[in-house]
């Protein structure tokens, strides 16, 4: 570390008005041109720390101690106008949601111009030239007309490039990127991050990259800071931190990273056969014209064997959720059919009734898949209500057993979903799905909304239940790490079509289709065989 770092935070402590501590004694420094990552789970205080650098913390939060030195100036002593000169001009920021960080009613040019007009004395024409240059630099096609376009004309990835351009226009000394690519697909994420690294290197801008995604931070940063519950647990150069993690929490984080599961012998008896499935979404069109329907699924064929976990991967808009919902019977196909044990499952047919009781679903967001007005016990019991010949007492007993199986205590049965943590909620959703002993579970991104350590626990629970009850599973996910851990077979989708399907090891080791290779390449992964991190570290108390 050089003698005069660009940013030096010492002993930063943030408290709520009632004394509740949010950040305790956080200290770190960033040198000019360096890329530093802050990794932590939700609630670890990583975003607050970044906001404190700008003095952008909410009014209910007080800084009780600590100093923040930026380019030799004490930020905490600055006047409001001094702070404004700093924000945007010397420190830029890229937020997580490109949807909400760009004003939808302002043209791109106006938004980019705001900072330039405020912080520079350039003439209008000069500012315009600079904007066009920067938009070209972030690979926006036709940058001149982009200046007049509005945010909704651009995809999420493009919007994030525009955000990046607007932050970099003033050549700040420090760029703070808070989960800049969390809302984006893997391939887009890689493009945006590589662009960010390139661009900041060119202007010698230091970057503070905040993320929950340890492999991503490991791939792009020089130094990594691990935060947990408002404190810095460990900081080191990134390769060292990965190679020799010291603290228990860091080891737990690393152990929570998905790893390839064993190859299992699975049955070859088909349970679900999807034949030639086509689903259309009606075209929106304009006021007077009907547009041709959009094909969400095009001639999809898929087989799920008994007791097999089939993963469905692909970017957003690839049709994987539509396929899952069609298989489960929430969407009626426009063509083709879904066979269950060889019988058609069209609504109202003989096969339908049996099929309905034999397949269940776990949704991505347990906050919206659990009725907020029902207790945990009632939610799980609901799955049994449509069964005949079962007494109330038996139902209650089975609910109790199932809750125990998914690791929830009896005391939680009377709680409401909002009183549970995200992980507990997803356990309830899993309990509700397995209580009927279904033959098939469709799981749509079941662990995407969870923190990494919780994700590892839920995946473990899911695998053990799957091994115990031998249900088949269609596991929909964009997270290839998770897929590598849990799947027997992998199906890759793009634009409503299946581009590749095969055994897990074959897909991950010898991908045949270019899209699969691109997808695998985009996902940051930690080196295999991490020294000294074992499964035992997963259970370390946090």
């Amino acid at each position, binding site marked *: 570390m050089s003698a005069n770092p660009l940013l030096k935070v010492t002993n930063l402590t943030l408290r709520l008005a009632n004394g509740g501590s949010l950040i305790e004694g956080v200290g770190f420094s960033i040198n000019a041109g360096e890329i530093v990552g802050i990794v932590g789970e939700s609630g670890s205080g990583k975003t607050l720390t970044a906001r404190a650098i700008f003095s952008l913390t909410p009014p209910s939060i007080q800084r009780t101690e600590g100093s923040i030195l930026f380019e030799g100036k004490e930020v905490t002593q600055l006047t409001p106008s001094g702070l404004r000169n700093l924000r945007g001009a010397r420190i830029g920021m890229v937020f997580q949601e490109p949807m909400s960080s760009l004003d939808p009613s302002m043209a791109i040019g106006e938004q980019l111009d705001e900072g330039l007009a405020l912080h520079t004395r350039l003439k209008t024409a000069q500012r315009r030239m600079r904007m066009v240059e920067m938009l070209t630099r972030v690979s926006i096609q036709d940058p001149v007309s982009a200046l007049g376009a509005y945010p909704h004309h651009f995809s999420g990835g493009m919007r994030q490039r525009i955000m990046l351009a607007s932050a970099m226009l003033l050549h700040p000394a420090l760029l703070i990127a808070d989960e800049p690519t969390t809302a984006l697909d893997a391939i887009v994420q890689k493009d945006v991050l590589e662009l960010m690294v390139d661009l900041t290197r060119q202007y010698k801008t230091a970057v503070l990259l905040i993320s929950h995604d340890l492999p991503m931070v490991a791939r792009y940063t020089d130094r990594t800071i691990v935060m947990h519950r408002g404190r810095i647990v460990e900081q080191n150069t990134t390769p060292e931190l990965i190679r020799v993690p010291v603290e228990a929490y860091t080891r737990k984080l690393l152990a929570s990273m998905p790893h390839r599961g064993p190859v299992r012998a699975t049955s070859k008896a088909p349970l679900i056969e999807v034949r030639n499935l086509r689903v259309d979404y009606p075209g929106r069109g304009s006021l007077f014209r009907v547009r041709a329907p959009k094909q969400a699924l095009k001639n999809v064929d898929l087989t799920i064997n008994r007791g097999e976990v089939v993963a469905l991967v692909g970017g957003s808009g690839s049709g994987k959720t539509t396929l899952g919902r069609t298989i489960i019977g929430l969407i009626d196909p426009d063509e083709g059919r879904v066979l269950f044990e060889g019988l058609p499952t069209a609504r109202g047919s003989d096969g339908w009734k049996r099929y309905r009781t034999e397949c269940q679903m776990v*949704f991505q967001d347990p906050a919206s*898949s*659990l*009725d907020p007005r029902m207790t945990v016990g009632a939610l799980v019991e*609901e*799955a049994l*209500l449509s069964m005949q010949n079962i007494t109330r007492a038996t139902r209650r007993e089975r609910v109790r057993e199932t809750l125990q199986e998914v690791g929830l205590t009896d005391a939680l049965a009377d709680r409401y979903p*909002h009183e549970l943590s995200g992980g507990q909620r997803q356990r309830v959703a899993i309990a*509700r799905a397995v209580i*009927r002993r279904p033959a098939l579970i469709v799981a749509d991104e079941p662990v995407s909304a969870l923190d990494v350590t919780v994700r590892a626990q839920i995946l473990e629970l899911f695998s053990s239940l799957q091994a115990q009850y031998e249900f088949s599973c269609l596991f929909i996910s964009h997270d290839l790490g998770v897929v590598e851990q849990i799947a027997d077979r992998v199906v890759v989708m793009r634009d409503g079509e299946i581009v590749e399907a095969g055994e897990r090891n074959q897909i991950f080791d010898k991908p045949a289709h270019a899209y699969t290779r691109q997808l695998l390449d985009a996902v940051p992964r930690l080196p295999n065989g991490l020294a000294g991190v074992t499964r035992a570290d997963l259970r370390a108390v946090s």
Partner: protein
Amino acid sequence: MKTIKLNAAIGASVTGLVVLAALVALVWTPYDPLSIGFTDRLAAPSWVHWLGTDEFGRDVLSRLMAAASTSLRISILTVMTAVLLGTIVGVAAGYVRGWTDRILMACNNALLAFPGILLALGLLSIAGANERGIVVALGLAYAPSVARIVRGSVMSLREMDYVAASRIMGNSEFFIIRRHILPNCVAPLIVLATSMFGWAILAESALSFLGLGVPPPAPTWGNMLAASRPFIAHAFWLALFPGLCISLTLLSINLLGDALRDHLDPRMRGA
């Protein structure tokens, strides 16, 4: 929470007082609200007549109490009619969608296009100016806004994952509506129903004011207020007390409604 919620406490106590007065008035009032006494015409508030007397020498307090029971009864029945009708239409339109939705909402919007009070006036001229007529007219006039709110909630609720989950469990549509859709509509409905309760009191007063409400000599807050007009310069109490009754009741009911909504939503509890 240990600290008392001030708004809820004020709302509950004033509403309670009004309800109590209305109940007491059913069996006892200080004077007969209808008995005319020419000796005490337009008497100012005193120990004999706490809130004074009107131009016919009738005791204002007794009339206010009697009017409270009439007004509350009419409002409650009106709100119940509107909520029942509106919920049925709203759930049918929002859950079934398609043509059912289009036809129901076309009728609904046509009704919404009339100002509530105008619609009620029209209906009253058909149904006749009596209590039942007022309830039916106001109930029909307010049902469309309930239907709108319910339809909106139902449309967003039916797309929730827990509704899909329930369907996957093999539960029938009626079961889903009863178990998931209706309970989650309650919070916006409570808020709407409480403010509607206020409107109904106001509308009933307005109708009485216009002479289309409960026919005199039976007292309501509205016709008392209407009758006070010629005397407002030298008998302020004739206008002041019915007016206070109307506004305080509205205010307290709204306070209570907000508190009820917070309480009924499990997510707000203990937050």
